[in-house]
């Protein structure tokens, strides 16, 4: 599509700048390297969600990308809700924003973005969203400063964190599988019971029918 080609052409110019910025850790100037881009339609909202366990740190960063007119960037509104409906972050009329929270309940966390009413052009908006959960949201620079480690040791410490996350994920998956297995087995037992009961209901109802009709005919002196 045309949009992809426009981005491709301009991104080729950005590439050396991005490399330099990434290597010098100035990623907040042009944070394109780590985020995904979404398109927000001219009417309606665009929502992204993720199912997250409890006690997990979530970091989010969103910014509007508009290459057509860089001095008049359209604004959006954003809202982040927890699975129980609590409003965790709300922002109106902004071109960029950040949110950070620790999940208290496990469930589906929803982040919704929509265009503000002031820019009613029929054009789609591109929004960059940087959504990090768990180990990716950890601030390794402060860990490095606090414990005075650097270089390969810090990298290996990060890898150890990733391995611990993998273990935690496996345990979580195992627990979910156990829950689902219980539901499956309960449904299995229910199918058997309800089918036998259905047969019983059928027999009982037909016995009642015959008994009632026989009584009726006897009353009417037809038998």
């Amino acid at each position, binding site marked *: 599509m045309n949009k992809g080609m426009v981005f*491709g052409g301009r*991104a080729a110019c950005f*590439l050396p700048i*991005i490399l330099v910025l990434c*290597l010098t850790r100035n990623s907040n100037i042009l944070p394109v390297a780590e985020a995904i881009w979404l398109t927000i339609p001219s009417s309606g909202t665009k929502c992204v*969600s993720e199912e997250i366990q409890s006690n997990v740190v979530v970091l989010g960063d969103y910014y509007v990308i508009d290459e057509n007119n860089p001095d008049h960037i359209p604004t959006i509104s954003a809202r982040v809700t927890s699975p129980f409906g609590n409003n965790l972050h709300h922002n109106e009329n902004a071109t960029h924003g950040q949110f950070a929270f620790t999940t208290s309940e496990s469930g589906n966390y929803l982040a919704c973005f929509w265009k503000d009413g002031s820019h009613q052009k029929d054009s789609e908006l591109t929004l960059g969203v940087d959504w990090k959960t768990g180990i990716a949201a950890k601030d390794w620079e402060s860990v490095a400063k606090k414990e005075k480690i650097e270089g390969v040791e810090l990298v290996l410490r990060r890898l150890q964190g990733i391995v611990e996350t993998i273990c935690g994920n496996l345990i979580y998956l195992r627990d979910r599988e156990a829950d689902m297995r219980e539901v499956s087995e309960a449904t299995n037992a229910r199918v058997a019971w309800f089918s036998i*009961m259905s047969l019983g209901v059928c027999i009982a109802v037909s016995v009642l029918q015959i008994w009632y009709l026989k009584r009726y005919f006897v009353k009417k002196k037809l038998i």
Partner: protein
Amino acid sequence: MAKIWGKMWALMGLLLFNSVCNVSSLSVNVNNIECVYEYVLYEGDTISGNFVVVDHDIFWGSDHPGIDFTVASPAGNTVHELKGTSGDKFEFKAPRSGMYKFCFHNPHSAPETVSFHIHIGHIPTEHDLAKDEHLDPINVKIAELREALESVTAEQKYLKARDTRHRHTNESTRKRVIGYTVGEYILLTLVSALQVIYIRQLFSKSVAYNRV
């Protein structure tokens, strides 16, 4: 002198490590077509990921065609394509750097929720560094280790998404068992009551006394 250079290479490796960990894992509602863009820094990077259609509320279960998934390169041509699937993994090498477009197309009118995970992985090679630097093998090994761990994490995310879909199916089965069985009992009693009423009516005096 060698110690300083060693620290510099380690720091360079750390910076490369930080800047190329590109992972995104989200769920999005697909009404007709939904596209996600992700930037690939280096040519030859491995783009890997998976997606699962989670909210699959189908009735009969056998004839839903699934959704289509396409990846378009910055030049606009389709690099990877998967048609009519309800969830799959993908992995390919990026032919060039730039902004890649990952699109999900839903051919049906019912909206679906798609849970996807995209990872751009990079192993440092000789091309990344300047001419007078050379590659420290430890950085390559660390990058490969990181990529292996990322593939395990991606597989776990895939399993989690499929487990969510399985859970939806199980919940739906449970509700159907209860709902349809209770409905069946009520219908059975209703039909037999109607039968009795009808037979009574056949024998009533007001309608043709000698007919039966």
